[in-house]
């Protein structure tokens, strides 16, 4: 078993994993899994919000994640590398998206 993990680590070295990026992807993956399970066990109908387009929970998650990426980039470019408030803003944005879009 040790041999296997050592082998795996050697072969995945080119991917240059860090725990921070690992955490990032674990969060994204768990969000996807949670939303998939919710969609499976609590099916829903698309609804039309402020954007005038029908959206499901998954659509709203996508809009949230994409928008959050831009919020963080804008914060990084305009305010600086301390992204705590940017993440708080993303949370507000996420709530707004899930409530109104």
């Amino acid at each position, binding site marked *: 078993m040790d041999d296997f993990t050592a082998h795996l680590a050697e072969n995945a070295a080119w*991917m240059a994993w860090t725990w921070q990026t690992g955490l990032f992807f674990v969060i994204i993956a768990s969000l996807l899994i949670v939303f998939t399970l919710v969609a499976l066990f609590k*099916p829903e109908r698309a609804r039309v919000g402020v954007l005038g387009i029908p959206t499901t929970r998954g659509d709203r998650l996508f809009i949230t994640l994409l928008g959050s990426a831009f919020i963080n980039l804008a914060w990084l470019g305009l305010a600086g590398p301390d992204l705590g408030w940017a993440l708080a803003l993303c949370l507000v944005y996420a709530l707004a998206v899930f409530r109104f879009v």
Partner: protein
Amino acid sequence: MEKPINNRAWLLVAPVFLIVAFSAILPIMTVVNYSVQDTFGNNQFFWNGLGWFQELLDPSTELGGRFFAALWRNLAFSAIILAIEVPLGILVALSMPREGWKVAATLVVMALPLLIPWNVVGTIWQVFARADIGLLGYGLNWLGIDYNYTGDTLSAWITIVVMDVWHWTSLVALLCYAGLKSIPDAYYQAARIDGASRWAIFTTIQLPKMKRVLLIAVLLRFMDSFMIYTEPFVLTGGGPGNATTFLSIDLVKLALGQFDLGKAAAMSLVYNLIVLAVCWVFYTVMTNTGSERADRGEPA
């Protein structure tokens, strides 16, 4: 219009997902990993946090400067080719024959530029526009016009724009032609009875009926020109200097020329986010203009 969603169909997508995992998801994860680190080769990486992103978004740094320069260059290129190709495509579509053997002949001729591989298009124009042996370049200089796309920024830009217009106006024209063909003859008859002018027919019948295909054409052309690589790479290689270095060309220079994997990864992620946002708008508009029609009870 609303219908319940059955998510079980997603299981059928599982094999594709597995392939995509290796061809796209793992590479993208790697790019994300690279974007927060620095490397000098030999699989040794050093944590750099958000450093590359910060540099990238600050136009006063070397990295930020070239990123924003390439971004504006790319947006300018997209704006120019859209401003030319869309009106020109509409004009071509309006003057294409509606019936008879000429239709097939015109369609084949129109489709020809779309069938040529992109690097061949680049090569054709590279030779065609050369000032020493190319028909266009030599001809222009013979006429006394100073034209040399390898040395002069304006010449290089004109050549690339003309090449793109030559390559892709057909697409806009063919889409518009399809839109025009779908207009029933009754509309034109009514216009004739009302004594409508040619311009009135265009603005009140043809243009509104072409709206959807035009939207598709604009979005397709924007995406394509925003991600353009092959043709300017073959034609000018991004030169003279950096005059035609668009985002993708700059990215390749950074990643494969300088081997700055961290910087290149940060740049490609921001580039990718912009493309993703535009794609989302594209997809949303495409899927929803149809449903709006259905809601209003109009034929699609």
